[in-house]
């Protein structure tokens, strides 16, 4: 027995784990009966189904008819920089306001590109902030501070 499709193998594992997880988590709620279903009934059914499908996909990864597929490498740098910039935006927005949060978002996420250029990023930051100010703050009047809260109050 040899794994032919590594992507299927791990997809199977993932679905199986999520299926079991949902089944286990459901057990804290009432199951009820088929005629009077409690909050746990449907999710337990679905969780079991997902786990079975996961198992089938896992087994299928060994099947002779399956295509040979290796796992791709993970772009840790791109992944972490982009998501880190999003988290920083969420963290900064309520305290420091839209302008600073957006500067950080654009600055940090831009680093993820292999063609990063400070000049371009600075230029696009100015344009984007001006646009955001006009559209989001003035036009749509979105409910968030534009400037740091300790400065305005």
């Amino acid at each position, binding site marked *: 027995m040899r794994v032919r499709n590594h992507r299927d193998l791990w997809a199977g594992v993932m679905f199986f784990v999520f299926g079991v997880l949902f089944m286990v988590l459901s057990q804290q709620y*009432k199951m009820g009966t088929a005629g009077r279903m409690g909050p746990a009934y449907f999710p337990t059914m679905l969780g079991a189904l997902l786990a079975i499908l996961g198992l089938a996909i896992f087994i299928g990864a060994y099947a002779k008819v399956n295509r040979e597929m290796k796992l791709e490498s993970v772009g840790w740098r791109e992944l972490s920089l982009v998501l880190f910039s999003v988290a920083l935006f969420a963290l900064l927005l309520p305290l420091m306001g839209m302008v600073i949060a957006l500067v950080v978002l654009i600055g940090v996420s831009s680093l993820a590109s292999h063609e990063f250029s400070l000049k371009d990023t600075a230029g696009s930051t100015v344009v*984007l902030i001006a646009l955001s100010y006009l559209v989001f703050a003035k036009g749509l009047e979105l409910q968030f501070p534009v400037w740091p809260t300790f400065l305005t109050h």
Partner: protein
Amino acid sequence: MEQLFSNLALGLATAATPDNIFFCFVGVLLGTLIGVLPGIGPLATIAMLLPATYKMADPTTALIMLAGIYYGAQYGGSTTAILVNLPGEISSVVTTLDGYQMARKGRAGPALAIAAFGSFFAGTVATFLIAAFAPPLSELAFKFGPAEYFALMVLGLVAAVVLAHGSILKALAMVVFGLLLGMIGTDVNSGVARFSFDIPELTDGIELAVIAMGMFGFGEIIANLEQREHREVFTSNVGRLMPSWSEFKQSVMPSIRGTALGSLLGVLPGGGAVLSSFASYALEKKVSKTPERFGHGAIEGVAGPESANNAGAQTSFIPMLTLGIPTTPVMALMVAAMMIHNIQPGPQVMTSNPPLFWGLITSMWIGNLLLVVLNLPLIGLWIKLLTVPYRILYPAILLFCVVGAYSLNNNVFDVYMTIPFAILGYVFKKLDCEPAPLLLGFVLGKLMEEYLRRAMTISRGDWSVFVTRPLSLTMLLMALALLVLVFLPAIAKKREEAFSEEES
């Protein structure tokens, strides 16, 4: 027939007010603007712009604008497919095959124009089809009990799996995973907050737009950044815009065939829009006297699939408007928008709110018209946009996403929530799991549970209710037949061939 025209007249009276035309125009413009950006499909575009419509007082206007965004985004996607060889979504994959080749030969202009004309023609036909078929279908929907609705959703989800490309088992698992994610939040029957881990924001469930942005928006950006490839954009040599008379003649029949195919497949639950563009391409290649031109810039290969795609996109409104059941993730977002405005989609909308119903339908035609009027002169502008390097574009896309996520509930929680879904979307991509079925499952999760419960309460716990009622039995048998069919080796091979166009 008379009824049809009086309905359309009512629709026209609603949709053609200056306000509604203005917002339809804004929608088409914004949709195209964002849809043109590489790697952003209609789904991410609508998710991003959805919050902008929340504040509108009139739900009709909001829906008309959203529909405009949808067509705009789709047309924008075609533009990108033709000029950069980069499909924003699966249904425009086929357009890259010949559209990009045309662009390389300096005929990007005619390719873009034919795509617009074909889409407009398809849109016009599909609008009439919707107007003609929506009322009888709504009548039928009133005969549906909970068992029928449940069976219909099973059929829809199975169809979505069959029409998705890639492994069927994985697509099925994605649907079930989506259904489970839909369970998160307060259970309407018992009031229990399920899987919320005592986080107050989670008791209302997860926002669909958050999942769409995380998986389709961010996941796509990260994957694009990883590839580090240099893209060729055909900007200097678009050529003249108008197709020649012979090119025009060559495109007429493919457009008509594509429209017929797309209208038919679009109604299917599961969103035939994707399948229809593939099917149309295959059909054109088959009926062509010179099939060897395909893949080297055959204009039929642009006209057919583009018409099919647009017709399918439009007729996919039929199940949503008549049964209240979204059959594609985009329709799911439309349903979400309707609910925000306190409209429960379903057969009753047509009788309880005829101006909204017919106004939306007529606005589709107006939207398509605006698309042609807007895009042909503005193509130059879209091309300029495409020359902006990706390193500058993607932070802008991120910006629109995070601000959009925040404005859903004016809460940074939704911004944080995009992060786990971006990771999940990235993992799915690495493991070859198509995310669209998950989204569909997510939207239908709570509805399905509700109908299952009702059906089972009425039958007092007797599962046979689903097979003793003829309509429900028919739909479940159809779902079963579909599943059996795709697992038959001969059909499985054909299916793989149909979708393999994109790799070749």
